[in-house]
């Protein structure tokens, strides 16, 4: 047993860290540090910087721009990005639509879409959830009727993250509603957001932020060549996507950064007794428990990676554990950060335009609100428990 990274792995980490330090633009770094909303340009700028370096889609095959990194290197890269505070790489193209195209796409579809995704020429979003289909995804209703060389699409998607930035959306649609099993008759379609009949309506979250949307489809014509895999076999595609390797589910690098930040500013906050808040045993114990939980998650994650590297098998239901623990930690950190500033957590957006206003402090309470989403999105933590219960425990 050896918990240390090898010399090669450490050297790789140094290389990534050094490169990020030199290439992450200061304005983006500041926005992330202050929890500010990122624009479409911010996100694409960072995407393109990585694409130029050849690091934007490490898991893709080499011929399409992948890196040949092993799972540990990929994990190190993502951890370093999180720790450095880079903008996120939006997953819809790179780690969702891309892998689906690589696995199920025709040569023409690959040639058409993969380079655009890789280079950040198009912004993708995901059309899975519907108002009546959240955790129960297979109940989806959006209809796509085959009419000659196109599908006629009608219906609604919801929780479409960054749909207002997107050029394209990949959708699960129902092409046949006569099937006995709900998982049958679903198809996977790629849709150009500029097609007539598509309306995007913002859903403002309780922190005031605009990140998710409702997308309405009214008689939207989608060419049949945008169908991925076979008609009616969309559930197979969707399942592949869910099971696709997710290295960064625990978001350990980002949580490490938040923890370090929180410790730093808790040391500068004054507690009720005039001493630093960081020395208040009640606050300190809460913080330490989160830190220990994060240490344990990191090692658990490394244990899974080590297994994966040896077995060559994708991680399976273990990823659900990383999701549950990772999001609990993110939420605990956002809660403690808000708690650390005490009454100063109260000011909201009203004064945000004042240049003297402390943007970091003002961002803490909205961030706490926003982070409640983490245990709900990407398969709620209850769904993750269902997965472990069924797949790992056989219940």
């Amino acid at each position, binding site marked *: 047993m050896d918990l240390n990274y090898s010399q090669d792995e450490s050297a790789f980490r140094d290389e990534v860290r050094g490169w990020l330090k030199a290439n992450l633009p200061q304005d983006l770094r500041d926005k992330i540090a202050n929890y500010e909303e990122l624009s479409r340009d911010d996100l694409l700028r960072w995407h393109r910087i990585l694409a130029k370096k050849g690091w934007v889609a490490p898991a893709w095959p080499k011929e399409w721009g992948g890196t040949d990194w092993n799972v540990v290197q990929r994990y190190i890269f993502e951890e370093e990005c999180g720790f450095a505070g880079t903008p996120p790489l939006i997953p819809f193209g790179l780690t969702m639509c891309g892998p689906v195209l690589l696995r199920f796409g025709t040569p023409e579809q690959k040639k058409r879409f993969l380079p655009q995704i890789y280079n950040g020429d198009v912004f993708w979003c995901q059309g899975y959830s519907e108002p009546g289909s959240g955790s129960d995804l297979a109940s989806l209703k959006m209809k796509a009727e085959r009419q000659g060389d196109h599908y006629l699409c009608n219906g609604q998607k919801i929780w479409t993250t960054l749909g207002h930035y997107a050029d394209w959306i990949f959708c699960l649609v129902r092409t046949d509603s006569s099937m006995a099993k709900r998982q049958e008759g679903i198809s996977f379609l790629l849709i150009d957001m500029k097609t007539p009949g598509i309306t995007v309506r913002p859903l403002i979250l309780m922190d005031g932020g605009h990140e998710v949307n409702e997308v309405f489809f009214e008689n939207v014509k989608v060419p049949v060549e945008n169908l991925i895999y076979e008609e009616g076999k969309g559930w197979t595609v969707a399942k592949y996507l869910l099971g696709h390797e997710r290295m960064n589910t625990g978001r350990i690098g980002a949580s490490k950064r938040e923890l370090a930040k929180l410790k730093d500013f808790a040391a500068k906050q004054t507690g009720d007794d005039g001493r630093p808040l960081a020395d208040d045993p009640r606050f300190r114990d809460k913080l330490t428990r989160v830190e220990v939980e994060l240490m344990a*998650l990191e090692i658990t994650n490394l244990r899974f990676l080590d297994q994966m590297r040896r077995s060559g098998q994708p991680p399976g239901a273990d990823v659900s554990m990383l999701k549950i623990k990772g999001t609990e930690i993110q939420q605990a950190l956002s809660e403690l950060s808000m708690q650390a500033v005490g009454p100063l957590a109260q000011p909201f957006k009203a004064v945000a335009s004042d240049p003297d206003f402390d943007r970091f402090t003002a961002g803490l309470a909205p961030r706490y609100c926003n982070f409640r989403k983490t245990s709900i999105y990407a398969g709620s933590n209850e769904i993750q428990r269902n997965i472990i219960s069924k797949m790992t425990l056989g219940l």
Partner: protein
Amino acid sequence: MNFDYNEEQQLLADSVRRFLAKDYGFEARKKVVSSKDGYSAEVWAQLAEMGLTGLPFSPDFGGFGGGAVDLMGVMEAAGDALLVEPYLPTLMAGQLVARAGSDAQKKAILPQVVEGKLKLASAHTEKGARYNLSKVSATAKAAGAGWVLTGEKAVVLGAAAADRLVVSAITGKGMSLFLVDTKDAKLKSYVTLDEMRAADVVLKDSKGELLGTEGGAQALVEEVVDYATALICAEAVGAMKYSCDTTLEYLKTRKQFGVTIGNFQALQHRMVDMYVSYEQAKSMACLACSKVDSPADARDRARAVSAAKIKIADNARHISQEAIQLHGGMGMTDEMKVSHSFRRLTMIAQQFGDAEHHLARFARLS
């Protein structure tokens, strides 16, 4: 990076598991627990035969020079089987001898420990000291060529079984360690909640032999307590795994309302959380054992061990409590092994410092 046991470690862990499954099942263990001495001479001989008493000691004394990581699989097996033999007390006191003793002392004691002929216990904790390792009031004074010790030690695990005790006491130069023949001390023995044997030890001008440098015991005691803490973290992992597995089995067999109770989502999710707790605890046991094996940085070691013990203590409580709850009334009974795992996990959570003690220590070291 590599989290697997090597071939030797795996073989050893497997053979210990096989032995315990065969000769140390729940019924066999019951007999040991209710025997006069609370341990089995035959089992001890077997442990020695398998090399377990020699594992962590230098080949110079017939041992195998293993570290905490080499002991992990063994401790997990011990936790699974709820081993009550005075193994940990002997290893712990043996480590104090190995790390502090003169060549003559090591030669006199360690080969016998390795061969299973000598058992040891370490007597450090006193009433009122709680988990503070520097709080010792027993005293030692020079008497002729040797020393005499006076004071009281509380809850000395394995004391009655031990041939010799390693006792901490204060001299003019500070905390020091002494070897004391158990027969020179007065023991008040009892059974612990987790069915081991311990004793309160009274020393009154009891003869002692200085072990190591006079006044130099503090750092060493802390080091060896960290070592033992890492080992019980691994033991806890074994007991947690048993508790999870047997509870899962119960959910799959126990029927209510016409279905196995594992069909109920309220129970499924709690079962999942138990397994997640177990995995997190196992990760921290790996960390603790690895760190006590790398002597480089005492602060780094102490910090890792405290972090591990916080998680082990919290998760031991979580898993043991849920295991009982999910078993319902049956879990409460003495007949079920799961209630005995509960008792061991309950004590492990507080042994060598509870979560609160280690939270404070972790913060001091950060």
